[in-house]
């Protein structure tokens, strides 16, 4: 099918974008990479009256390193440019592991980091990584800027804490801590398909080898990135053992996720996947946290 007609604005400055969003409110949609918005418009599931194209604003793209080891990715940075960034495996190994799982190379060539975050598909990888790494979202509207944690930003299916006149301009990530391990695992029917279930796991050890902090965040098994706090707390302060990993996987799979089931996977199968993937992810993350022995 073809999109319904709309008015097209392609401002060449951020203030002009913010003025347009202020003027048109809910009738306007920012157009980032378009890899979710345009198919939705092709099927007429979305019919925005005004599209505000963000592709002519260079200041919305790029990755900035901070002196403390953290970094900021501006919203219009293409997913492919993040994936290819030479320092990514060192500064954010979890993000590096997740990038190739996002759709296909042709989609990542256009798709943007901010577009995926603002779209907030519960089956998407990037929102899960943002929650797992404790990222901060930077929002801007005419005359106002604010920040919000990734945890609070994602509010439900395709729903984020962002007003109609606000634009997500950047996402910043804290420094990757020492003695930390990670794993991003998912099960999809074909490479690049939406995952039936997936998990981002991080583990940070203290000097004695006990778990100082852990996170388990899931995709495709709830209405947003599902942060399994109770399962992660089971690990905190403990030495990571196979039995403990098993207990955390059980807790996450039985009490913390809310899979809806779909044509490809029943809710029971999604719970099964979460249990298995959590076990594998925690084993891998704890090995990586210990480093090469």
């Amino acid at each position: 099918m073809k999109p319904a007609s709309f008015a097209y604005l392609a401002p060449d400055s951020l203030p002009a974008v913010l003025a347009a969003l202020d003027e048109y409110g809910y009738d306007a949609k920012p157009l980032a990479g378009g890899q979710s918005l345009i198919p939705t418009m092709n099927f007429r599931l979305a019919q925005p009256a005004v599209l505000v194209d963000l592709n002519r604003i260079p200041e919305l793209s790029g990755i900035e390193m901070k002196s403390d080891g953290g970094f900021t990715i501006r919203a219009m940075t293409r997913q492919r440019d993040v994936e290819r960034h030479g320092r990514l495996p060192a500064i954010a190994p979890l993000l590096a592991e997740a990038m190739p799982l996002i759709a296909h190379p042709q989609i990542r060539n256009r798709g943007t980091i901010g577009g995926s975050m603002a779209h907030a598909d519960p089956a998407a990888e990037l929102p899960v990584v943002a929650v797992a790494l404790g990222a901060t979202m930077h929002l801007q509207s005419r005359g106002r800027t604010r920040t919000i944690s990734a945890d609070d930003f994602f509010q439900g299916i395709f729903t984020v804490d962002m007003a109609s006149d606000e634009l997500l301009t950047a996402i910043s990530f804290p420094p990757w801590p020492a003695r930390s391990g990670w794993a991003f695992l998912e099960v999809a029917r074909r490479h690049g398909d939406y995952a039936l279930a997936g998990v981002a796991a991080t583990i940070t050890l203290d000097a004695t080898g006990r778990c100082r902090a852990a996170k388990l965040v899931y995709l495709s098994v709830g209405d947003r990135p599902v942060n399994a706090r109770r399962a992660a707390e089971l690990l905190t302060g403990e030495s990571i053992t196979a039995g403990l990993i098993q207990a955390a996987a059980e807790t996450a799979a039985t009490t913390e996720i809310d899979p809806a089931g779909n044509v490809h996977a029943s809710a029971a199968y999604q719970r099964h996947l979460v249990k298995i993937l959590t076990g594998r992810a925690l084993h891998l993350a704890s090995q990586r946290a210990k480093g090469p022995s």
Partner: protein
Amino acid sequence: MSQLHELATRINGQDIVRQVEPRLLLSDFIRHEVGLTGTHVGCEQGGCGACTVLVDGQAVRSCLMFAVQANDHEITTVEGLAPDVDNLHPLQEAFWETHALQCGFCTPGILLTLIPFLAENPRPTETEIREALSGNLCRCTGYQHIVDAVLLTTRQAG
């Protein structure tokens, strides 16, 4: 009715200036306005890869871009790969040689996916080739001969 916008682009080395409605997809612009019907349209939701073209040298889905967004950008379609049938691109030759196409519907998108992939990774493994092809559906040839074609090209390139 939305207003027309000027689109100045370059397709296969040729400058093209047109007035377009913003809702016109790049794929439809290429096929219906410019008449380059080698770019095929399958799903119009980014799943099949048939409409893949190069925008500034990078493979993208032309059904997931509005034509107006190609303003000031350079497009390559399958018609831009070879001057005529006697002087095919080496990758097209390899497809011919290894029977890597039957109906040909997916072929233009696959060629345009593989060209930047091979420029970046001239000696890919079979696994890497299959991963590069993951965003392109082929329903009749099967992927084995397409993988063979890529391997043949990389061998010939030495």
